[in-house]
């Protein structure tokens, strides 16, 4: 495997920023990277995508926060996190000291929150760029999720692009819970997104047959894991077909190198591994090795050649 591995050029980029490899963590699935240190060499990852941060510290929702589902899980964490001050004081310096690139996921409930977060992250050492988690309820629009409305989504992205460090690419993270994902993708790239992350979780619900009530404290939750992979590959495919120039960070149920290969062939130039890390803490490194082997076995000399190859 090692011989094949070294034969393929696995470098890629997030917008204008080069990455050593195409495999990243997924927001909310590797915390801030620290806990993975015993299992993987974090510097070999494309980047650590951090848990979505908001302006203030958040407790998150009450438990139960998770339910296992066939080949996946439902979660309702509620964006528990330290807030931007905590992140800037603790987690980001920890990553920077180790030379681990951070792709910082930001979240908010109003457009100004996102813009303020982008301002606070300007020029912060080690921050490669921003992933804008627009799968959040918009308090100014009766809680409708930004990502489900092309106008609200592009308002957020435009505000972030205007406030953010010009050297930091911004990726808008799209929700699959829309009738047609292409208009949202078009709107946010028109508003200045340098790339797209897709997909976030799908809204789901599990009812406990014993208590005859929803299992999760938050009632509904986000479905992730291999169960959602075909939906995710379809989203990447549709958006790449419509907007071939827009870089895509693909995710949703990636567990192996062949899973990652599907995303690359559909049009993703990098991938995030999320839920699979819960079952295998070294999944990111393994997926990288397996993807390199799979590309070599198919005669590709670089990852870049394979991006979107299924559309030929």
């Amino acid at each position: 495997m090692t011989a094949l591995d070294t034969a393929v050029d696995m470098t890629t980029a997030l917008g204008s920023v080069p990455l050593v490899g195409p495999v990243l963590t997924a927001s909310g699935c590797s915390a801030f990277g620290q806990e993975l240190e015993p299992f993987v060499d974090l510097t070999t990852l494309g980047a650590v995508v951090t848990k979505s941060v908001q302006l203030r510290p958040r407790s998150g929702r009450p438990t139960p926060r998770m339910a296992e589902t066939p080949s996946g899980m439902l979660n309702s964490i509620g964006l528990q996190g330290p807030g931007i001050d905590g992140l800037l004081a603790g987690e980001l310096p920890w990553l920077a000291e180790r030379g681990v690139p951070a792709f910082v996921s930001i979240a908010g409930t109003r457009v100004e929150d996102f813009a303020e977060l982008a301002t606070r992250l300007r020029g912060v050492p080690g921050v490669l760029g921003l992933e804008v988690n627009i799968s959040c309820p918009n308090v100014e629009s009766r809680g409708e999720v930004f990502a489900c409305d092309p106008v609200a989504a592009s308002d957020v992205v435009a505000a972030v692009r205007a406030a953010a460090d010009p050297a930091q690419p911004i990726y808008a993270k799209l929700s699959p819970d829309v009738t047609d994902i292409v208009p949202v993708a078009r709107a946010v790239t028109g508003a200045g997104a340098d790339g797209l992350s897709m997909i976030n979780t799908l809204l789901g619900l599990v009812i406990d047959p014993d208590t005859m009530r929803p299992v999760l404290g938050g009632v509904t939750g986000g479905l992730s894991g291999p169960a959602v992979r075909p939906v995710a590959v379809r989203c990447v495919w549709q958006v790449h077909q419509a907007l071939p120039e827009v870089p895509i960070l693909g995710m949703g149920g990636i567990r192996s190198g062949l899973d990652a290969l599907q995303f690359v062939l559909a049009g993703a130039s990098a991938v995030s591994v999320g839920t699979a890390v819960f079952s295998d803490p070294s999944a990111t490194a393994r997926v990288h090795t397996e993807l390199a082997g799979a590309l070599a076995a198919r005669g590709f000399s670089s990852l870049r050649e394979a991006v979107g190859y299924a559309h030929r």
Partner: protein
Amino acid sequence: MSPYLTAPAPRADHPPVQREAEVLAARPVGAYVELTLAAPEVAGRAQPGQFVAFAVGGPMTANLLRRSIAIAGTDGAAGTATVVVAPHGPGSTWLAQRRPGDTVDVVGPLGRPFPLPEPGTTALLVGGGYGAAALVGLAALLRSRGSRVLAVTGAADAARLCSVEELGETADVVAVTTDDGSAGRAGRVTVAVAELIGGSGIAYACGPMPMLRAVADAATAAGVPSYVAVEESMACGIGVCMTCVLPVVGADGLTRFSRSCTEGPVFGGDRVRFADVGSLPWDVVGADAMGVVRP
């Protein structure tokens, strides 16, 4: 002075590893199965109170999440670790069906171990059901440091008692209770705890949450520090998913939603807000950002 009798449990001495471990022995013990694993790195690093997380179901499994199981014992020289598994849902049932020669993917040791008292302190150890297994290593360690060890083990019935023999070999006193009276005294562990807590300098408990709460309350009321090993639903066991949180009072006196896997599973018994588990009290750090305001 802190109003708390306990300090938060410090981190373990060693980071975890991920390994394929061969099952060397599978022994039924009452309603449970004791598995002995060839896992030298886990055995060499583990401290009492820590746990391991297993992948379940094999390569074709649709059950992706790890199952957390307490480490019941280690033999550093033999390079083995034992766990006691209670078949419950699909994952624990699969684990309980492993046979010698099978391999399992295991991550560990995980979580924070039980903090130890001054050498010679009399210690009360309370185990409910398979929770007693997690106290066997602790009992031996305490004895080696000159503690008198008083053990209480209880369960619903005789088949669900665990590690009575092993505890009997190390502890100075072993009290057994069952809810149905099929072994030992009829009733809950709390009856025995009430009798023994006064003579103890520290208490430890592992078992179901209502039992942990009862032991922690009894200890705190008697002015005795207690440490409990909690069991909260976990998806990863390594601290990355945030599913396993409990409201716990930190060293600074503030309550946070703390991860049972990395900040626990051992918490100061007087620091876990048992009554608030499953709700979001206004004074949890960050509850205001969730729209929960002070009443």
